[in-house]
């Protein structure tokens, strides 16, 4: 079977104001199988959003080869990015119209995904009338209702409170189980990655440093101790990587957030 995404020696450099150029993606090779759930895990500034932008076709200035096949791309951003002057329903219509989905299918697609995410009652709400979690769920509906074969997700739940994020993660997994889309999910949250992914790629300083398969069967429970153990190993791998390379000063130091996240998860697990 053909891979859904194939990237060969992808390089991307940004020119700084002082004329120096900085490599944000360093000869990346990546293959994602159709139907796979891949998580790319890394601290902020490691180049993971840049990689997604290249895959989505938003960024076209790079060296190397990328090919995405199998159908349309859906993209879920870190923020909902809804058009504030349109209602929930109209926001979905905007996406459907832009993607030229035949009008006859609109109402079926919308009802299906709105129902899956529990938003059926909120069609006439404007984005400002929704909570952050609802807005992000609506953004998920918008990404899904154009029926993408590949779903790119850029830290989509990092701005949400943990309880809401959990609920949407569960929604996402059940939708994935039903529709078998290829998902590339970028996150800085090790626990989230271990819960969601088939495979985790650890990214640091514009390169993949480690590849891990997640040997936990599905359906998974968020409170499974195996996930906790695995995420601890992942973080440990991170620490080793960082220790091995002390000259990575160009990348903003955000590694502590990984630990913070883990601590928060541990706390959340005890509280709930």
């Amino acid at each position, binding site marked *: 079977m053909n891979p859904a995404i194939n990237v060969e020696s992808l390089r991307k450099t940004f020119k700084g104001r002082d004329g120096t150029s900085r490599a944000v993606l360093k000869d990346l090779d990546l293959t994602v199988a159709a139907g796979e759930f891949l998580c790319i895990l890394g601290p902020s500034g490691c180049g993971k959003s840049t990689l997604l932008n290249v895959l989505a076709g938003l960024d076209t200035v790079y060296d190397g080869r990328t090919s995405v096949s199998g159908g349309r*791309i859906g993209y879920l951003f870190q923020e909902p990015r809804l*058009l504030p*002057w*349109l209602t929930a329903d109209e926001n979905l219509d*905007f996406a459907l119209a832009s993607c030229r989905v035949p009008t006859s299918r609109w109402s079926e697609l919308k009802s299906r995904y709105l129902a899956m995410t529990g938003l059926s009652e909120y069609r006439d709400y*404007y984005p400002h*009338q929704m909570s952050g979690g609802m807005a992000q769920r609506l953004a998920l509906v918008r990404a899904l209702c154009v029926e993408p074969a590949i779903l790119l997700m850029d830290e989509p739940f990092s701005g949400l409170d943990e309880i809401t994020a959990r609920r949407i993660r569960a929604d996402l997994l059940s939708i994935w189980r039903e529709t078998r889309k290829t998902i590339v999910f970028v996150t800085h949250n090790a626990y989230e990655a271990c819960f969601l992914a088939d495979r985790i790629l650890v990214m640091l300083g514009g390169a993949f440093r480690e590849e891990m398969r997640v040997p936990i069967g599905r359906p998974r429970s968020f409170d499974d101790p195996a996930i906790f153990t695995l995420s601890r190993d992942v973080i440990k791998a991170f620490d080793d990587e960082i220790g091995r390379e002390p000259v990575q000063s160009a990348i903003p130091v955000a590694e502590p957030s990984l630990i913070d996240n883990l601590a928060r998860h541990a706390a959340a697990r005890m509280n709930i």
Partner: protein
Amino acid sequence: MLKLLSLTTAVIVWGALSLTLPHEIFPGPIETARALWGDIAGGEVWTDLTMTLLRVVGGPVLALILGVPVGVVMGLNRRAEAVLDVWVMIGLTIPSLCYAIMAFMWFGLNEGAAIIAIAVTAAPSITINIWEGVKNVDTKLVAMARVFEASRAVIVRRVLLPQIFPYVMASARFGLGIIWKITVLIELIGRPNGVGFKLFYWYQLADMRQVLAWTLLFTIIMLLIELLILKPIERRLFAWRPQVAI
């Protein structure tokens, strides 16, 4: 209701103040209304009023045509912004009276010159509004639309314009306030008709009743335009915006 009350208060204050001066110099509301009614019944008001309103509408249309493109360019291009910034500031600083004098001297005492003078006065503030609006365009929404394969035309029409539109609307409303004041001034120095001309005419005859009657007439018309046309349009267009609670 509250509006009506405040309006009534304004009229009462006017009446009270008018008692402090001889009524030939400061007529009260009733006297003024009577003079206004006489003018309206006489039928001579309409030509002047129509001419002024035409200028008040024509001026901003030309001002938008001049001001919007410059504002858009300034918002999009940093170099254009640096170059045009000073021009806009100069344009904003020059008093409208200067524009009026220059327009009448260069283009003659005609309608075109009047409209040009009005437009040039209003254009810089429109430019500033649009410039601000374009700079504040949310590029994240544009990226979102591109991900959903929206064409360039769709992005402009459904993502960019709705974001700039509030700024256009604000500059139109704000502009109307200034424009009518300029129009009256320009009519005073260079037109044979219009509200400004009439104000000056009655001023020369020292007829304060008529001066106030014309002022009242125009104020009423502008209030009606604001309340019956602009406000409803705005309410319809911006229904999606959240109410700000402080």
